[in-house]
């Protein structure tokens, strides 16, 4: 079929010119020894060909990190993390990957099948050795989106949008990076943020010039499918006056990853009348049914609405990782600016999630909305933790928060920890939270109409999450719905 041939050709071309896209194909090239010290930081900076200011910035972060302690306030438990027992650059494959799909966790394969991922692509996702070399034959679905992206790249350039790996941006747009990097999440903001600042190697940079409505949704989807994603990703998105962008992060397919610790930082900056929508589907490997393995995901995401009437909207569907620790936040500094946080967090088996948001209202007439849906099943624990702060200048600011928790089974936990701080009498905060379970009546009603128990649970859970799912871009929403159901498999009956 001509269409397929064309796709293959596109992919082959892509594979050859991959550096442009930040896919360092030669993964075996540089292996920093285990451990984290100034030398590691210098090595990373040097290998990335970074200017002196960037190295200085990293070192500042590293020195701050040394003085900091790992936070303990979250409702999570894990064995101590040995930060010296890890590689921080060009992570080699510590263990050889599976030789073929036969050696891959059958649970993982079953999930792939449910998501409708073709076999050869499953091999890639599962890290089967040599799967990457077979890439050109291994694609259509995923790499269609790459070719689509390539086409759009031209469109982006014409619109003046910069969308590139952050390491490229540091070299090619140093003035922008230097101006904005670390302005929302300062180097010493928190333990994991500081760690990221010192050693990040990967991530995206987006710049939308004044008055530009980004002509397409920007997505990391294809990059993540192409290769291991960075352990310490750094993303910086700037929307100038009246600019608009929607950014999609993540992938619905669960992935094997040798790196247990992930600590990403995302910074968003919205100027006057600008709007940034950031959507995430997080489905990292959650560990097996017994809670072995799985990713520790410690993420710092924060946006600042600098300009008047600007808007930042976070939407997240968190189903993966053994531990999720993330609080996408908005600093509402521009008068009349708007912050939104829509979240679905699903935990099953032994997963733990402590996630929520911070809405810091600094300016008059700022508004924020928080809708958080928490679903716990199996032996998991899930916590919503959120802060709403009305500072003295936040005249007539408004916040509305709704947190709903759903428990499935009697071995899990669901917790709600809101902090409400108001220093302005004209500001108004409203918070509501509920905890419930799927009612027997609802289950029975669906089943008496012919739905299996699992489908019934899926349907009810999707209904429970609807207010959040409708915020996702269309194609993401469909996948996310499927994902919710898969994540909860085996949790009832």
């Amino acid at each position, binding site marked *: 079929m001509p269409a397929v041939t064309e796709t293959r050709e596109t992919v082959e071309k892509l594979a050859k010119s991959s550096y442009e896209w930040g896919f360092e194909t030669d993964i075996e090239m540089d292996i920093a020894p285990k451990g984290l010290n100034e030398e590691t930081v210098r090595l990373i900076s040097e290998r990335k060909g970074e200017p002196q200011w960037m190295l200085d910035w990293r070192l500042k972060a590293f020195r701050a990190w040394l003085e900091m302690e790992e936070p303990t306030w979250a409702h999570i438990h894990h064995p101590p993390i040995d930060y010296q027992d890890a590689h921080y650059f060009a992570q080699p494959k510590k263990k050889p990957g599976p030789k073929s799909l036969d050696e891959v966790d059958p649970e993982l394969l079953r999930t792939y099948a449910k998501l409708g991922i073709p076999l050869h692509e499953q091999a890639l996702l599962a890290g089967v050795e040599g799967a990457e070399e077979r890439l050109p034959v291994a694609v259509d679905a995923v790499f269609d989106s790459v070719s689509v992206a390539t086409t759009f790249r031209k469109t982006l350039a014409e619109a003046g949008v910069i969308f590139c790996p952050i390491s490229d941006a540091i070299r090619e747009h140093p003035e922008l990076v230097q101006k904005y990097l670390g302005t929302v999440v300062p180097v010493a903001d928190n333990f994991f943020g500081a760690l990221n600042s010192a050693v990040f190697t990967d991530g995206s940079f987006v710049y939308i010039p004044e008055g530009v409505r980004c002509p397409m949704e920007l997505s990391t989807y294809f990059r993540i499918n192409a290769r291991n994603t960075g352990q310490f990703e750094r993303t910086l998105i700037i929307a100038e006056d009246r600019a608009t962008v929607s950014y999609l992060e993540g992938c619905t397919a669960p992935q094997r990853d040798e790196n247990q610790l992930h600590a990403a930082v995302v910074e968003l900056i919205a100027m006057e009348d600008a709007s940034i929508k950031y959507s995430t589907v997080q489905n990292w490997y959650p560990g097996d049914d017994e809670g072995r393995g799985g990713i520790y995901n410690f993420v710092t995401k924060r946006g600042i609405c600098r300009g008047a009437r600007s808007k930042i909207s976070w939407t997240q569907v968190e189903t993966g990782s053994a531990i999720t620790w993330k609080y996408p936040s908005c600093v509402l500094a521009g008068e009349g600016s708007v912050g939104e946080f829509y979240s679905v967090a699903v935990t099953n088996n032994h997963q733990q999630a402590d996630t929520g948001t911070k809405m810091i209202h600094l300016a008059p007439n700022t508004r924020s909305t928080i809708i958080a849906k928490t679903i716990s099943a199996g032996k998991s624990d899930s916590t919503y933790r959120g802060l709403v702060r009305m500072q003295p200048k936040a005249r007539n600011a408004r916040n509305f928060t709704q947190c709903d928790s759903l428990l499935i089974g009697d071995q899990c936990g669901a917790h709600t920890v809101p902090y409400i701080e108001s220093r302005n009498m004209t500001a108004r*905060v409203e918070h509501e939270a509920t905890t419930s379970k799927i009612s027997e009546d609802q289950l029975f009603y669906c089943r008496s109409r012919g739905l299996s128990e699992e489908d019934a649970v899926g349907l009810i859970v999707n209904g429970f999450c609807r207010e959040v799912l409708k915020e996702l871009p269309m194609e993401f929403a469909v996948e996310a719905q499927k994902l919710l159901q898969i994540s909860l498999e085996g949790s009832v009956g």
Partner: protein
Amino acid sequence: MTQDAPALEAFVARAGGQGAALAETGLPTRRVEAWRYTPLRTIAETAWQKAASLSSETVGALLDALPLPETGARVVYGNGQLLSALSALPEAVQQASENVSPLKGVFSATLNAALGAKGLDIRVPAGTDAGLLTLVSLCDGQDVSTHLQHRIVLEEGASLTLYDVGAGEGRYIANPRFDIVVGKGATLRHVKLQRESLSATHLAIVSVDVAEKSEYDSFTLNQGGSLARHEAVVTLGAAHAIAHVNGVQIVDGQRLNDLTSMIHHAAPDGSSRQTVKTVLSDAGQGVFQGKILVDRVAQKTDGYQMNQALLLSEKAQINSKPELEIYADDVKCSHGATVGALDDEQLFYLRSRGVPEAEARDILVRAFLIDALDLVTHEGLRDLLLRSITS
């Protein structure tokens, strides 16, 4: 807080052999989650001493200023000592309770355990209604502290209404502690009026075990003190237990009032209700921390919590942390919180009907508080609290 803060040093010295736990914990800093909104640095620099006895004039004057019931039994403590001449227990009540295990890991309790002096120690026998008991704790002094330990046990089917009043003059710490057991089918109504001196620090800790089909029905009016925390730890340890932990805080000046509670559902079919309202003016600071913990075994728990704050001035601030920690699936738990100013529309409506602004504000503030006050089930005490608010 450093271990060599004068306050801690003085406390530990006074505690003698009992001070080890206190010395180890020290005074909580803001980094301690439970105290993030209520910094104790205002007490750290003073070497708090034991209070001297109060003169009868002082006691008389303090009592006269308080809204107290005409009827029922009354027990009065002055600077931590029982004033026998003014005190009598209800007839039905017996002295000396059984063993009550003290609370650990809560600073106010640790401080009290180190320095505690014996307070009320009573038992209401099975099936007895002991009626109303007013407990007045008065303080007067400069840089002194009192740490009364009260133990109250209600046996099966017993009932008691406790009116718990704290007041005084001067700069002192009142650190009372109540260990309470509400036996099977028993009911304790605990109505508290906190009207300490505006320079005082009030650190109360109430720990309650609620037994099967019994009820702990409490209401706290936090109105005085420079810094005042009322903390309740209520454990619903057997099936069908009920807890009401309600309150109102009225904060003005530079003061800080704090209502902190933990309602622990440790058995099935329990029910808890909590409404807390705070009115803030001047540069007053209000704190509400309310946690509902539902254990895995506590199926069919019904928990509801509402906290609302009304800010009446530019400098006032509220910090609120309503918290749910839930490990059982078949439960109905919810909380709501609102923070805001008086409703402009309501204000305008009243004024357009000829009510002057100040009066209109009063009407609306009172309306805000009244539905919380209505939760005080003892009518006489409700009127006294209302009087206290109005004054």
